[in-house]
């Protein structure tokens, strides 16, 4: 069932709290938006409302993690990753078990505009050594990723959406950290998508089938460490590739895939996302159209891209 990944997180963490007394959750006055409140209602003694003070929340989470807890620190992705140096020094460098929950990612949040839209968060977090970066694409994947995070050693940034996500995975899906998931096979071009853009990408791929363009769609839920092996395999098999993300095209999924292919198997790649610009206010659908993230725009980009020649590599 279509569900926002922030809602899936709230349900998952409240459930996991039962069996895992080591979980603590910290919030910065956005409990009803990040859905951390669901944990707070059941385990008030392990839920810390830190107020509008993200920096303090980050450091406190680190201290808790250093003392045997698994600390989930929650806010909008834009606000929490905005406190970069504190994450760098208190969490990433000491390599502690903090789970940074960043919700309200992308222009998909709509009318609140740029200040609340996480659009550089993956880039910032990906650049930190020790930090894993996850962005689940549907309800089941989110629940499993949160459960996985309890076993993970070291810090994780988990990027969640405000908007509902359609189901993309099959019933017996198993989340595997660091592994991409082929959702649809094809031989002409590979589309890598993540989070809120996966469903639109799949739709666009299905539409092109009619015209004989066979699109492979890969869901990248783990942006770091990225699945090198699968990316190289796709580069070999389909040559062309496109990345789709509700994020700046600098530093996120597009960059991660580019880095792999340029070192191992260079092919022509197109990045769909915000082209080094800030977000803005608007209706979600209109913004997706404006930034080329809706099904129609993705379809058009694929067509256009397929008509371009592969560069001759020397």
């Amino acid at each position, binding site marked *: 069932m279509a569900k926002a990944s922030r809602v899936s997180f709230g349900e998952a963490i409240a459930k996991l709290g039962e069996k895992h007394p080591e979980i603590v959750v910290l919030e910065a006055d956005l*409990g*009803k*938006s990040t859905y951390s409140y669901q944990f707070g209602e059941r385990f008030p003694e392990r839920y810390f409302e830190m*107020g509008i003070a993200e920096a303090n929340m980050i450091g406190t989470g680190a201290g808790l993690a250093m003392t045997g807890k698994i600390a989930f620190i929650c806010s909008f992705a834009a606000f929490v990753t905005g406190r970069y140096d504190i994450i760098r020094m208190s969490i990433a460098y000491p390599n502690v078990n903090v789970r940074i929950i960043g919700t309200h990612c992308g222009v998909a949040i709509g*009318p609140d*505009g740029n*200040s609340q839209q996480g659009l550089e968060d993956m880039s910032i977090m990906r650049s930190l050594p020790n930090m894993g970066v996850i962005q689940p694409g549907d309800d089941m994947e989110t629940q499993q990723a949160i459960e996985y995070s309890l076993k993970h050693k070291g810090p994780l940034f988990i990027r969640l959406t405000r908007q509902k996500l359609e189901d993309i995975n099959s019933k017996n899906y198993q989340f595997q950290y660091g592994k991409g998931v082929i959702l649809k096979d094809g031989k002409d071009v590979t589309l890598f998508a993540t989070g809120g853009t996966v469903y639109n990408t799949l739709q666009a791929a299905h539409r092109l089938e009619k015209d004989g363009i066979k699109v492979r769609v890969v869901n990248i839920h783990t942006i770091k460490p990225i699945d090198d092996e699968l990316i190289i395999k796709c580069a070999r098999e389909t040559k062309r590739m496109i990345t789709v993300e509700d994020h700046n095209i600098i530093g996120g999924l597009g960059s991660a895939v580019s880095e792999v292919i340029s070192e191992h198997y260079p092919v022509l790649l197109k990045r769909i996302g915000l082209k080094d610009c800030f977000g803005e206010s*608007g209706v979600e659908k209109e913004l997706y159209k404006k930034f080329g993230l809706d099904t129609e725009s993705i379809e058009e980009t694929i067509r256009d891209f397929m008509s371009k020649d592969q560069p001759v590599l020397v």
Partner: protein
Amino acid sequence: MTYTIDQLKDIAKDVRIDCIKMLTEAGSGHPGGSLSSADLLTALFYTQIHRTKENALSDDRNRFVLSKGHGVPTLYAIFAQLGILTKQDLLTLRKTGSILQGHPDYDRLPEVEASTGSLGQGLSIAQGIAMAGKIDQKDFRVYCMLGDGEMQEGEIWEGLMSAPKYKLDNLCVILDYNKGQIDGSVENVMNIEPLSDKIKAFNWHPITIDGHNYDEILNAYEEARQTKGKPTFIIAHTIKGKGVSFMEGKIEWHGSAPSQEQCDQAIKELSAL
């Protein structure tokens, strides 16, 4: 031009009505903190900042930074009263392509003086503007409005430490102390009291007022102007959602827009004030 208190009240009434209309048309936004600041900001723009369409970007203008950026409908509504925006503009709030972004956007609309919306940053910016005024020996004054929940941000306290060091008596903070934030009351989420003592201990000149009482508001602004050698911090006790009975003091109205029915009801109540 000087304004009587009755005139100011009339303007603030229109400002509140416009806030409700804009938020209803936008379908999202923050009514509670927009309504709580309407009296303070109307009085500020008309009696202290003396903003006009002509001086809106002049070098010598008095400045106002809305640090609690989600309260921006009030600012836009005042701009419309002053002719800086049109009433038509107001209805584009939060729509795709509008200059009226959900939070102040300095690049699109420089009249807002700063891009805010990530809480905690406006005081430092206002301080920088005040410092530049001192360097250039300008007479302009700088005002900055903070939210009470916003007071929890560390950067605010860093700014509170530094402004007195530089004797920024051209800087005046106005705290919209409406007692509510998102997850509950400020007192429960993260208490900021005893506030006046803290402000005083940080070497500011604190003034405590009722932020809906115009005599007290105007006196505080005058006292701030007279205060030399240190910045002033006005603790203005307000009511979140002030003026609309079903919004007053209700946390639920922090960040949700009224329906058309609620809008009609709210306008009816505000018009009768």
